[in-house]
């Protein structure tokens, strides 16, 4: 049974259709990449999955339950974890406090139960030395790592990564990919929106291509990259 399934999900803002009958399923433990030109509706798709935007039509099923009408808080508790393309840490809280908030409220646990886990997550994401600094003072890479760490602290079943490698140097990107690969190996299901294709393809098993809110292809990365439609629509614009 898939952990997450979208069935004919549609969303329009006025005349602009940002999701057009999108259907796909994510198997438990799978890593799926989403690509598409800017404005294709990739981040909107995440907002529809987290519940920050309500669908106009269609349904979202998570872990066997229909969550289409549930608010973001409930979906977070059910196990949807998300990072933002533009990192949005709680700037006035310290890095460790950012994680504590996510762990105590996002996984409904006591502070004493989660502080060890939070420290482990900080170590894994390379933020341990920054633990007691206000998150507002972090660099871009550190902010991206904090996004990842905070999403992990909510103990997600599915991790939604939104262009987490964007804007990083190659070395930084490589480190981050290794962290994500380690998380994936432990069994986390991942959906990753990314323009940095070599980073993406080193983690995901399937690619989904989105254009003007429509799924125009889903399959193995090599098949997708070779398909005519993707070359025209996606790579044609990129090159």
């Amino acid at each position, binding site marked *: 049974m898939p952990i997450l399934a979208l069935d004919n999900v549609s969303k329009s803002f006025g005349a602009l259709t940002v999701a057009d009958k999108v259907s796909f399923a994510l198997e438990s433990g799978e890593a799926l990449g989403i690509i598409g030109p800017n404005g294709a509706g990739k981040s909107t798709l995440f907002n529809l999955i*987290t519940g*920050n935007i309500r669908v106009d039509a269609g349904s979202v099923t998570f872990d066997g339950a229909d969550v289409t009408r549930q*608010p*973001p*808080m409930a979906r*977070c*508790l059910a196990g949807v974890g*998300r990072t*933002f393309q533009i990192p*949005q840490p*709680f*700037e*006035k*809280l310290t890095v460790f*406090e*950012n994680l*504590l*908030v*996510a762990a*105590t*409220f*996002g*996984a*409904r646990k006591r*502070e004493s139960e989660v502080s060890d886990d939070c420290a482990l997550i900080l170590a894994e994401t390379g933020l341990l030395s920054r633990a007691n600094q206000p998150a*507002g003072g972090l660099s871009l890479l550190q902010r991206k790592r904090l996004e990842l760490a*905070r999403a992990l602290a*909510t103990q997600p079943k599915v991790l939604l990564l939104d262009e987490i490698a964007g804007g990083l140097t190659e070395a930084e990107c490589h480190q981050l990919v290794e962290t994500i690969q380690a998380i994936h190996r432990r069994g986390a299901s991942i959906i990753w929106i990314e323009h940095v294709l070599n980073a993406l393809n080193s983690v995901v098993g399937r690619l989904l291509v989105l254009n003007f809110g429509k799924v125009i292809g889903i399959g193995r990365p090599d098949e997708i990259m070779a398909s005519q439609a993707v070359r025209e629509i996606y790579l044609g614009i990129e090159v």
Partner: protein
Amino acid sequence: MMWLDTIVQGILLGGLYALFAAGLSLVFGIMRLVNLAHGDLIVLAAFLILVLVTALGLNPFVAALVAMPAMFALGFALQYLVLNRTLGPDILPPLLVTFGLSIVIQNALLERFSADSRRVSAGALETASLQFGPINIGTMPLLTFLSAIAVIIGLNLVFYRTSLGRAFRATSDDRVTAGLMGIRPDRIFAIATGLAMVVVTIAALYLGTRANFDPTIGPARLIYAFEAVIIGGLGSFWGTLAGGIIIGVAQTAGASINPEWQILAGHIAFLLVLLARPRGLFPRAVD
């Protein structure tokens, strides 16, 4: 030693103003909500304490303890059912709604209690005093000041040492992201207003036992509270105490020169601080 006495009395009066202001500061700091009915809520709590004291014969301090959970529930419900609906990018709706609420509370109290001045009797404590060297300090003003310090320490502990406090700060930082972390912002806001109403009850205890009150004096208390919060720097609790003390000292100093100058001197001090430090004494780093 007149001037020393004036300053000490002013500092103690500042404790009362800080109590008026702490709840306002709490609510503003977390949800950027300016509650124009804050002064009337203090008066409402004072009447609640009065009723408990006269009807049940309770000691005013016990009556305040009994009133606290009731006021918490009132604050929670008010925020959850009414004020949460007004929060948004536009700052006008909360101002209009709390202004209306102020009128409703005043008139409801007038209807029930008439316009007579009331006072909660604290018995022998009212006139008790302690001698510190050359200065005579009233026991009630001293208790007021110590309560203000206790409230501010307590609020700081909740804010910076508890999971609830982290949720307050996280929600204040970014409401949408807080929702994604499993926080329910509407409920966090309701708890914050409930907590503010507990502080309001403590302020009401000292308002009611130290001076006469009637249903219409709320807005005047609100002005002192506002000035204390703004002088202190929005959202800083210790700043709020400092702001209260500055207004208190200015008022007693003004009154020692000429009794007519008491209120004016407080407002002038407020304007002078704003001229020198437009963002208050202890502004938060980013706002």
